[in-house]
């Protein structure tokens, strides 16, 4: 799970910039990134950096501060998929990325995305557009949840209760979409493509 050394150096520089030359970053440091303000799901993303599950430090809760190694861990979720990897490794990479997403949606770390959490996400997502009312956002979330339920569970009886989207269900929803090619960030202009050893 390494990134090339050039990129590590670049990221280190960026880290120092963000932290103000401190060894660790706190949530407040992310306010220094100006363009992030306009991002509707900023809070969720920042939170993801401190999420213990993403940092592999536990199954729930938030860390107060992260060091550079943690920073890199999070960034590594976004490395592009190397074409030399075999099928199994591609699947692993894919699962990792999806797990990152899942953790973002599942804010209370119970392993399920409930309707409330989903609504929360969608509302935040659409909050950037001033023309969509909260009511519509909620309906959209509800509709999406319905769709997810129909994909995962199929036809439901009227009195059957659906707890929430588990990680397996989540994988099912994403089956058709090639997340490997979409969820990555180009590090360091066009120099080297990150490798996943």
């Amino acid at each position, binding site marked *: 799970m390494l990134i090339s050394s050039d990129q590590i150096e670049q990221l280190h520089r960026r880290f120092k910039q963000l932290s103000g030359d401190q060894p660790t970053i706190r949530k407040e440091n992310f306010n220094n990134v100006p363009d992030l303000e306009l991002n509707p799901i900023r809070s969720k993303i920042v939170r993801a950096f401190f999420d213990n599950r993403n940092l592999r430090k536990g199954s729930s809760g938030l860390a107060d501060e992260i060091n550079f190694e943690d920073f890199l861990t999070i960034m590594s979720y976004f490395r592009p998929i190397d074409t030399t990897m075999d099928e199994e490794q591609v699947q692993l990479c894919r699962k990792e990325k999806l797990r990152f997403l899942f953790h973002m949606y599942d804010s209370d770390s119970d392993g399920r995305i409930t309707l409330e959490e989903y609504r929360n996400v969608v509302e935040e*997502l659409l909050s950037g557009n001033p023309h969509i009312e909260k009511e519509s956002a909620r309906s959209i979330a509800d509709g999406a949840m319905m769709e997810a339920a129909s994909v995962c569970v199929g036809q439901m009886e009227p*009195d059957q209760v659906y707890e929430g989207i588990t990680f397996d269900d989540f994988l099912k929803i994403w089956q058709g979409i090639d997340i490997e090619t979409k969820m990555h960030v180009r590090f360091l202009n066009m120099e080297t493509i990150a490798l996943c050893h």
Partner: protein
Amino acid sequence: MSGRGAPGPRCGLLLALLLALGALPRARGVEEQSGGASQGFQVVSFKWHHVKDPYIIALWILVASLAKIGFHLSHKVTSVVPESALLIVLGLVLGGIVWAADHIASFTLTPTVFFFYLLPPIVLDAGYFMPNRLFFGNLGTILLYAVVGTVWNAATTGLSLYGVFLSGLMGDLKVGLLDFLLFGSLIAAVDPVAVLAVFEEVHVNEVLFIIVFGESLLNDAVTVVLYNVFESFVTLGGDKVTGVDCVKGIVSFFVVSLGGTLVGVVFAFLLSLVTRFTKHVRIIEPGFVFVISYLSYLTSEMLSLSAILAITFCGICCQKYVKANISEQSATTVRYTMKMLASGAETIIFMFLGISAVNPRIWKWNTAFVLLTLVFISVYRAIGVVLQTWVLNRYRMVQLEIIDQVVMSYGGLRGAVAFALVVLLDEQKVKERNLFVSTTIIVVFFTVVFQGLTIKPLVQWLKVKRSQHREPKLNEKLHGRAFDHILSAIEDISGQIGHNYLRDKWSNFDRKFLSKILMRRSAQKSRDRILNVFHELNLKDAISYVAEGERRGSLAFIRSPSTDNMVNVDFSTPRPSTVEASVSYLLRENVSAVCLDMQSLEQRRRSIRDTEDMATHHTLQQYLYKPRQEYKHLYSRHELTPNEDEKQDKEIFHRTMRKRLESFKSAKLGINQNKKAAKLYKRERAQKRRNSSIPNGKLPMESPVHNFTIKEKDLELSDPEEAPDYGAEMGGGIEFLANVTQDTTATDSPSGEGQAGWPSSGPRSEHDHWSLDGDFWAHVGCEWQAGFSAPEKGAGTCPACHV
């Protein structure tokens, strides 16, 4: 078998047609003869000359369209052979017939007709329906292939042919280096028409398609420049070309391409701006799209810039705003008309390519030249693609694999553009024009027919990743949006400037400035992609909801006593399909016009079908629609019924959603809170609008629909067993329901309705009736069902009908 039988009469028809055409010139002669001897007043006369031109044009269009019908009669044939190939063959046949009949090649594909009338619709169609995100995401790749690739092809082909010529293999030809380069430049370009025609049937994955297709569109600038440059060089004469001219050539490339793009963008801006104000002239809205786009093409042609680029970018840039501004019907009209024009133009182009080939005067055969051209264009294209892909893969996220490269090189089809360009050559300046023309024809035929035929098996054999046509799922859209934001954020955090950053910046700019200028205010509100999908889903949901309910035998999701009372018909009896068909059909047809003439239906109650219809109608009314009075419009060319589906769709969705969400854990928990919240909300609104003089909170709502929705919320969340509230809160819109229930079911109507004091039946004026809906008074009998303040029942005036 049907395929066998069909070509027979069709061919016969066409033959007859053409012989008639051939005979007509002679008929003309006859007419003139008889006209010489004055015969006084003629009751009927045969004025062929009068209508000749438009008649022939219309006839050819008809022939082409009939041919299309003929081809598609046999599914087997069209799944193997691309339509374009069939059309070319047909053209050859027809050309042969015309030639045999008349010994002159009277019909050819002239460059004027091609460039002015046949090509613009196709390119506009391509631009208007271009998937922008995909296009701009791969723009670097596309540009590289289009510019560098085409120049490479042109140069190598021209130079190689020249080299071979020098070696003497071609025999004696009156050509020079510049002629070869000129030929190379026009034969090098990948043709958008051919690519579309063939790739449409092959369904490769979208990235591959967009690269090849984008390349074919954008290489026009290069082609135009190279062609013009070399043509002027040829005119000047080989030895008078100076370095300055070469530099001018390079500069003209930039001017032509960027200028063309700019013209397109300017016209797109104009078009979007114009459509912003067309609210009251909805009928001619589609016209604007076509006229302004066509003007962009002509303007750019006038300024000797790249016309294809202009109209392409006009389509690309305007699509978002135009689709937002114009009404649904206009959008559909534009869509269909564009497809029709493009398809028609494509058909005619290929057919005429075939016909134009049958012209012995232009044929000059030179085996070496022809064969070598074919070899060179294929080989050099392959080499070019491989080299460029190797360079690109270092910078691309999604790598282009060998398979993709094979398809790209094989899919580089030449078509009518090359033909039109070669026909434009002047015989005086280019001595070997006929040779070039014949070779171009052979090349075009080869690529379209042979490569078109074999590309499908090739794609299947190589197991190219095919496109997956899927319904856009709401989840996908949502997560896609989330992705974009996440990736932008990561890019911001890590300090990179990447695609996402740029796209983000652009959409911010667009939202802040462009959309405000170019989009209608109402459209700005709702033009989010997610909302589009949502909207579609609403509609689909409504349809499938009712269909599903019928299929289950009863509308199981809705348990309400009123339905049970009313419905005498057992839905579980067979013929679910007919019922489903009728309801869904109704729904799909015209959502807003479900209001049936209840009186006439009642009278024919005998047949079970009608009772079913009635029952479904009641259910629909009750749960889905506010019935509207049928507007008996006289035929009007200027009026269209306004489209109010959106609100209804929203209501439908809210309703179905609420019911279904009960199966979600958090929804269940949240329901109670929501109920209270809704009540609070209602009270709050009442409070806000309180007039000082009114003691109790009976206040006007701002819109009946709103009121309806809010009451709806209350209704849905309350236990379905609360029958009394149920009927009362439905408001005045259910008068039909009331009428019929009173009549048909002699039993008591749901008690709630009794409470509300519905009129018992019939033609007596219902306008003096007020009913209490919860906290508000509603005026029964007119559509206005929102209450307004009235200290006592019946003491106020209904604002809608002033009773």
